[in-house]
């Protein structure tokens, strides 16, 4: 049995930032477990720029952003194991790890930080009718093939889903010489950033078909084409709008799902909305001493927020390892009301918050010129004017602890429509 103060599961942006911060807060005995052949996680394949504006005040590509953390991680001489898989985690924080190099390892940790990231929703999960030929890839898998391994998925492409990975892959495929016929989006708005719509689609005259979906897949061996149709307000395909797009490749960018199989086995309570753990202000899950951060907790739009959240988590885990648990104070529940789809964290222990707390949330629709209303019970503690809110963009709100303490047992966030 190996003993560590903190074991971090995952060496992507979340795991790296959490481990670095835990080390900076005095924890010596840390292990980071990474299942891939190198650190950096999914950032290594996100070769486009736009990362780091918040954390580094400059625009970096994914690999550049990752490398800054990897360098710091190595400078701090934090222990890590590559090509190593965590097979299970128990509530008493023992873990089973496996790798070719070290075989089966039993590890006991004082605290565990879950940073496994997320996986892509599949064609099966959205159940598109039709055949099952080769040529259907999740956008992330295609991105890895193209950007890291140097293979092309195909030449004539349709993309389903206009989240950022879908948009970025549209441009990537064009630059790699392919023809992208359309990006098909079920919703009336794109889930991606405006700059990506402009620079990845409009620059190359790729049509973005909003309120459309793919209703059939054709091709016995290799994909031959897809049938696209417009949907009505209840998301049902409108027969008369059916159109066939010839293509050899379909890329799916239809959502990300936090990868929480290990968390479930450890008995951690999950939030059905986020797909991630239910956490408190310290990013600690329902199992004491097990923390979660990054996309395994909830899917983020910008890696900068992952870093911010993970730093906080690393610091909390360090405190958990070194400090006596403090009693007292109150526990406040956060509640997503009208227009808000979720809030992280789910509860705030007032005793654990120093002066202010940042809460992260997403809205359920596009809103223009509205007010984000933060209340404790019925008392309004904050009104924030928002010109523009979109489900694709995470919002972060900072609330002072005095405001929270002054109120009741619930902190609610809602959207007040119709201006002032």
């Amino acid at each position: 049995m190996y003993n560590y103060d903190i074991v971090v599961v995952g060496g992507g942006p979340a795991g790296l930032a959490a481990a670095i911060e835990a080390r900076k807060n005095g924890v010596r005995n840390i292990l980071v477990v990474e299942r891939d052949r190198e650190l950096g996680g999914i950032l290594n394949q996100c070769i486009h720029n736009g990362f780091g504006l918040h954390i580094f005040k400059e625009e970096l590509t994914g690999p550049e952003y990752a490398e800054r953390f990897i360098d710091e991680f190595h400078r701090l001489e934090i222990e890590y194991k590559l090509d190593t898989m965590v097979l299970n985690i128990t509530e008493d924080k023992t873990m089973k790890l496996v790798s070719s190099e070290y075989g089966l390892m039993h590890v006991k940790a004082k605290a565990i930080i879950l940073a496994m990231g997320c996986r892509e929703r599949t064609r099966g999960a959205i159940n598109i009718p039709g055949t099952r030929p080769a040529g259907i890839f999740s956008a992330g898998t295609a991105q890895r093939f193209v950007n890291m391994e140097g293979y092309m998925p195909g030449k004539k492409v349709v993309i389903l889903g206009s989240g950022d990975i879908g948009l970025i892959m549209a441009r990537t495929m064009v630059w790699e010489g392919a023809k992208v016929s359309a990006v098909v989006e079920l919703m009336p708005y794109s889930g991606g950033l405006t700059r990506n719509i402009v620079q990845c689609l409009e620059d190359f005259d790729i049509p973005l078909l909003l309120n459309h979906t793919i209703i059939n897949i054709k091709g016995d061996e290799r994909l031959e084409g897809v049938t696209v149709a417009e949907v009505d307000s209840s998301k049902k395909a409108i027969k008369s709008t059916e159109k066939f797009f010839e293509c050899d490749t379909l890329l799916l960018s239809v959502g990300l799902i936090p990868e929480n199989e290990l968390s479930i086995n450890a008995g951690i309570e999950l939030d059905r909305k986020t797909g991630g753990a239910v956490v408190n202000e310290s990013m600690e899950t329902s199992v004491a001493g097990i923390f979660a951060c990054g996309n395994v907790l909830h899917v983020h739009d910008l890696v900068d927020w992952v870093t911010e959240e993970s730093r906080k988590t690393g610091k909390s885990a360090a405190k958990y390892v070194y400090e006596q648990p403090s009693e007292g104070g109150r526990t406040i529940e956060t509640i997503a009301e009208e227009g808000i789809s979720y809030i992280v964290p789910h509860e705030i222990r007032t005793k654990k918050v120093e002066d202010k707390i940042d809460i992260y949330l997403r809205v359920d629709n596009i809103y223009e010129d509205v007010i984000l209303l933060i209340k404790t019970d019925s008392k309004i503690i904050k009104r924030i004017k928002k010109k523009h809110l979109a489900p694709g963009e995470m919002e972060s709100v900072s609330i002072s602890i005095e405001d929270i303490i002054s109120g009741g047992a619930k902190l609610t966030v809602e959207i007040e429509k119709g201006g002032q």
Partner: protein
Amino acid sequence: MFDIAIIGAGIIGTMISRELSKYKLDIILLEKDNDVANGATKANSAIIHAGYDALPNTIKAKTNAEGNAMFDQLCVDLSVPFSRIGSLVVAKCEEEKKVLTELYERGKKNGVPNLKILEKEEVLQMEPSLTNKVAGALFAPSAGIIGPWELAIALAENAIENGVELKLNYEVKNITKEKDYYKIYCDEDYLEAKYVINCAGIYADKINNMINSPYFEIMPDTGEYQLYDKSVGKLFNSIIFQCPTDKGKGVLALSTVHGNFMIGPTSERVKSKENKGTTRRGKDFLKENIRDLCEEFPYSKIITAFTGLRAKVISEDFIIEETGNSSGFINVAGIDSPGLSASPAIAKMVVNILNNIASLEKKEKFNEKRKAITQFITLSDDEKSELIKKDKRYGKIICRCENITEGEIVDSIKRSVGATTVDGVKRRARPGSGRCQGGFCSPRVMEILTRELNVGMYEILKSNKGSYNLIKRKVENENWSGENV
């Protein structure tokens, strides 16, 4: 010259091959695709039926219950996942309960053991997730679940172990009858055999018509299924059928041998023998129909959907016979449900037919055992450590969802009926069968295939010929057309 050529390496062809490999015979098993178990065998309900469905005195009735009883030994010998979890035919009103009695009587005539009619309370006790509307059920403890393609692959491997030759990518285009043997053509290529056994599934009529006048027609119908995540795997304990009504047989539901949950099938007659895939209609049908068994069914946990074609004939009974007068040409056709359940008994029938034509002699040595791929994740900690010490590749997890190691994938490729495609590896070692459906692991599986088969990445197929996964980048690709680009 072979003694016997078996056409079609689905469950029937492989079962017959393995059964005949007990005898002193030179056998060749021919398959048009690049892998065995590629037709109906890979897309069906995966059930070993008890045998109360078929009308008494049909071949189906005779072979189903008989075949069912043979699975325990067979699956132990071949290390194939099989579990007798029992089945329930669920009635939802008094009218339907009458049907249960009919099935009960029929089952008894067909030789189905231990059938029992259960009252509402008993049923709900066995199946707490079942709809409250249940009025009673027919319980058949002998029904079971199996891995159908695992079985066919295991049968093929064991047959080869016992001397059978397997020829893949051999699509029979023509057969000619010579004096006392047959010539079986695949384009220019041909081979010779004294006897021919036609197990060509939905193409059995086509094969028959190459040598005989047409006397049956395969009119496939398509069945659509949905597979759900393991978190739903325990919804029911037994296989749940709905009581057959005028409207049809209704959707069935079961846990698979791998712990997933499956519902299906739809049933639609199709004109073409090419699988056209799932449909919106089928999806809606399943969604609507499963509600009759479980009102709060967790649709969102779906991981994939697929269709299978079933080789139906008008008589609705199996055709297992030598054609003409001592022709030595045996049809094993129209094998739709319960073909899988009946398959061991069907193979026995075929052996008897052959024995009447040419007296068969048993081999002194027949190895009935076949070892399965070691499933790393199911081993104890000590066994895991030992295995990694012996072979480091078992320490490398390739499929994160199902925890499948490189060792298992390499084994699946290196076997006598080894995988050559991504789907082939998936059917043998299961990487990509989980929630992510190969999103993370398929590139790694392709890499391993490349290395083990010593071919290029561009040659690795998803499944059949033509199902290429990747192409070369524009700079290296001489076929890169500038069209529309």
